[in-house]
């Protein structure tokens, strides 16, 4: 038992070294304090100010999109990514900023969809809406 604990502690300590080295290597590629870097977030007010140069993407499931959504928003969720992406892309142009939202501050769908748009569709100006759909609804009141 003592031997197992001693060995476990040694392994736990050994794994720290490459993890730190990798962390240093990735230090500028990762946001350490927030899952979404501040530069990739946009407030409702700011997104509204973009007006026609913004294109809205709803990352929530189909049924939630069907109930209600930001006027003019395109549905693009990971459940039906391969069907929805080809419908979205013809509406995008390089001059437009993409604003992705999901249900609320705590959801991750917008972050994941935004990442895929950058990685797979090579779209640069992709932003995640702070507070998501809930925040957008509040701004309407």
């Amino acid at each position: 038992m003592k031997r197992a604990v001693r060995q476990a502690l040694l392994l736990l300590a050994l794994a720290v070294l490459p993890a730190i080295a990798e962390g240093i290597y990735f230090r500028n590629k990762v946001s350490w304090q927030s899952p979404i870097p501040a530069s990739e977030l946009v407030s409702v007010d700011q997104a509204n100010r973009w007006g026609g140069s913004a294109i809205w993407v709803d990352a929530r499931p189909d049924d939630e999109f069907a109930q209600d959504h930001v006027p003019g928003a395109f549905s693009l969720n990971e459940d039906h990514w391969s069907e929805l992406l080809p419908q979205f892309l013809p509406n995008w142009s390089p001059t437009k900023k993409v604003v992705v939202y999901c249900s609320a501050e705590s959801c991750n769908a917008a972050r994941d969809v935004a990442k895929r748009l950058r990685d797979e569709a090579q779209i640069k100006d992709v932003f995640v809406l702070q507070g998501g759909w809930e925040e957008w609804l509040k701004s309407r009141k």
Partner: protein
Amino acid sequence: MAQVAEMKYVWRIVDLIVGGIFVYAGVLKVLDPVQFANDIDNYKTLPWFVSVRLGFYLPWLEIFCGLALVSRLLYRGGLSILTVLIAVFIGATIAARARGLDITCGCFGHASQHWSFPQHMAVDLSILIALVALLLANRDRSVEL
């Protein structure tokens, strides 16, 4: 006596398979630690600053523990850590499911992204059973270091 020797080989094969699985899973995550941090964050259990640090640390821990099983160096320590890790992971997955979270496992990179909950559980429980079996089988056997 021959049966004991045979079982020794069987357990050794289980060591190699389970150890190999963890090394493979760890390497996939090391290649994309930010994605793994996102996967941890999806469980909504830990704050981001913890998730992102675990995203860098846990894959290396998996690799070292997997190598411990394969090489039989620091064997008992590696086996104990992996058993605790997989048990915690199963518990977290069940808790996330109970809270209605649709989480991505991220255990084996993109390959496991579209696994259903029963598929997650089947794989994880199989690994847990193998690890517990190894713990019991090696209880009385002398192993290295």
